[in-house]
């Protein structure tokens, strides 16, 4: 059935049925690991900021929620296949006489290094902060991109 669909569907790339299964497997793993920690326990690495990493054929995308921070307040660097982000979150200083009812927002320093699954084209890395979400786009190095090889008939 799977083979038929893979060959019948004109939109299915050579890689996609397995990539899709792999994606589902990862999602199931993530869900089950979430269940075992009750979905409220420690995150995967437990380091601030928490990150979501996605990929497409061309690049990796690293996202983190950093409300109140601007791109130029962050220190972002890339080498080979690692990305490091550090900075400090400061909260605005309010009136001394202000009486607090709730104080849930945190301030402080942070620093995190992530290893990506493949080499990065470090010259073309872009970082953008919008609405409190940092997005770092890391184009894959040529050697890390999937390449379709056409078999020649002799």
């Amino acid at each position: 059935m799977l083979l038929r669909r893979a060959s019948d569907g004109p939109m299915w790339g050579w890689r996609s049925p397995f990539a899709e299964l792999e994606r589902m497997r990862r999602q199931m793993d993530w869900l089950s690991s979430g269940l075992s920690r009750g979905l409220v326990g420690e995150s995967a690495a437990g380091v601030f900021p928490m990150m979501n990493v996605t990929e497409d054929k061309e690049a990796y995308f690293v996202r983190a929620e950093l409300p109140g921070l601007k791109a130029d307040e962050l220190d972002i660097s890339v080498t080979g296949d690692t990305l490091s982000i550090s900075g400090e979150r400061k909260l605005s200083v309010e009136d001394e006489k202000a009486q607090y009812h709730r104080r849930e927002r945190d301030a402080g320093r942070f620093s995190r290094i992530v290893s990506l699954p493949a080499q990065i084209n470090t010259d073309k890395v872009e970082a953008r902060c919008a609405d409190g979400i940092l997005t770092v786009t890391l184009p894959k190095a040529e050697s890390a991109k999937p390449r379709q090889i056409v078999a020649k008939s002799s």
Partner: protein
Amino acid sequence: MTDSESKALQAKEKAEVTTPAELTRPGLVFTPAVDIFETDSEITLLADMPGVKAGELNIDLHKNVLTLEGDVQAPEGADEADVIREYRTGKYYRQFTLSQIIDQEKINAEMKDGVLRLSLPKVKAATPRRIAVQS
């Protein structure tokens, strides 16, 4: 550690809403972290709502109940596949009951870099009124 030295931030899982109100749309809903403080003239609320654009934020004050509702569009592109997912995205929702009377006309909300700053000016203390009791 001295006061001038800032502490290191800890990773925190976002708190999911356990709201008594029924939600009509599917998706996850989180409680934004807030700071609320009060001066003689106003109450200020700061809320961390990363991913919420100014146009997608709903603030409602009705009968002393302040409701914040922020919609978040998934930031991922259509053909991106997950590698690691540590945090989840969804809407934000939180309600507060205000004890002070707020001057509704002068409420000011500002959304900047995912942080909402909401100023709720108190109604100027009404001049004491003497009510004559008629016998």
